[in-house]
């Protein structure tokens, strides 16, 4: 069997330059080869060679906090039991990262272990039909449960410190080209806390780099996916905060 054509396609794919039509042709051709040792060898060698091309470049300094943020993100992973039933862990996180890329309005990178601990406690508190709206998990950490018509949502934060973690379940799909936007109502003025999209199963876990501060009411609205700076719809979830 002649592999020249496959080698040509695999070469382009390894370099990231394979045209769409050729990609389809490659897949079709590979499908006819079955368990093809020569195909695997070519793919391995070409992928290896392409990967090493990167080392022709001089290294570029990375933000010194990046490794810490990544490690912190994994620390929050155990809170995800409400978010992993029907979607891979991190789907909501990816959505938020994508929005952050396009908007740059907030960051989502994971949370410190302390907040993760709060969240684990909070997941326990997040039960349909409950009446508690605010639970203090530890002396300095607060968990708040939203109430409304759209699924279950809770948040955890440490008063006076930046960083709020949100997690939810049974959240309805906000609709095509729409997202949930979180608002911090401060003296009657809504301040956006960022936009979130639940997984297809309605779960959500996200960290927003914001400080609750003097917020007296949290609210969630359904908004266009461009995440407007002022709410355009009625709240579907709210949570009053005791800031006294």
């Amino acid at each position: 069997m002649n592999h020249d054509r496959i080698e040509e396609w695999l070469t382009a794919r390894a370099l990231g330059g394979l045209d769409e039509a050729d990609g389809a042709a490659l897949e079709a051709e590979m499908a006819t080869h079955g368990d093809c040792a020569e195909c695997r060898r070519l793919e391995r060698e070409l992928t290896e060679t392409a990967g090493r091309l990167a080392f022709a470049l001089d290294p570029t300094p990375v933000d010194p906090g990046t490794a810490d943020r990544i490690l912190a993100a994994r620390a929050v992973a155990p809170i995800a039991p409400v978010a992993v039933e029907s979607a891979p862990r991190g789907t909501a996180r990816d959505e938020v990262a994508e929005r952050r890329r396009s908007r740059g309005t907030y960051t989502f990178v994971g949370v410190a272990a302390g907040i993760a601990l709060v969240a684990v406690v909070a997941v326990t508190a997040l039960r349909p039909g409950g009446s508690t709206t605010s639970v203090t998990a530890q002396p300095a950490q607060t968990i708040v449960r939203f109430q409304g018509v759209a699924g279950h949502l809770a948040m955890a934060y440490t008063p006076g410190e930046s960083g709020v973690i949100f997690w939810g379940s049974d959240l309805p799909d906000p609709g095509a080209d729409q997202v949930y936007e979180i608002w911090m109502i401060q003296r009657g003025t809504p301040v956006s806390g960022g936009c979130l999209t639940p997984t297809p199963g309605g779960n959500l876990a996200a960290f927003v780099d914001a400080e609750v501060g003097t917020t007296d009411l949290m609210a969630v609205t359904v908004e266009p996916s461009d995440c407007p700076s002022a709410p355009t719809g009625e709240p579907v979830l709210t949570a009053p905060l005791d800031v006294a």
Partner: protein
Amino acid sequence: MLLATIEPTRSASLGSVDLSDARDRDLLARLRGGDEDAFRGLFDRYAPTAKALALRVVRQAHLAEEIVQEAFMAVWKNPDGYDGDRGSVRSWLMGTVHNRAVDLVRREEAHRRRAEDAIPEAYEEQADHADEVVEAIGLPEERRIVRAALAELPEEQRRVLEMMYFDGRSQTQIAEATGLPLGTVKSRALLGMRRMRGALEGIER
């Protein structure tokens, strides 16, 4: 700039490359057990090169930073994504970063075009920083080998590889940009990569 004219020393380099990958695989094995030091070891070793690659493709520092973060986040969360039968850890990492960067470029092609005017300035700034760190974490032997192999390519083959890999262009886009027939672009990429494989992996062509 990208290339340096240095004679390759393949036989000596292959040994160091193998040892390097063995060390990387060990780090990855520890990482599977949640060893944060192992993650930091891998990150410190490859993130600067990953960022250089992402920056070269997407041409915007903040996007490159996010690509690196996402790629290493994926490694940290799912180290089992690496298949040892399919190549070295470093190539897998760079492939992960490169795929993300190229995907982003394809999605934001118009955005990238607008940013091209800013490239020279951005690169000058980055080059200054690179000078400071290149000796500390530079994997100098690996860089020397790859640069030498690239430098030995015929100019027309090297140019196609660079446009495809470092600029994130498809073969059709390269043909349009250079005025070359698409078939010529494909054959130059094929021949260039054959030569690179021969130089880097000891595969005679």
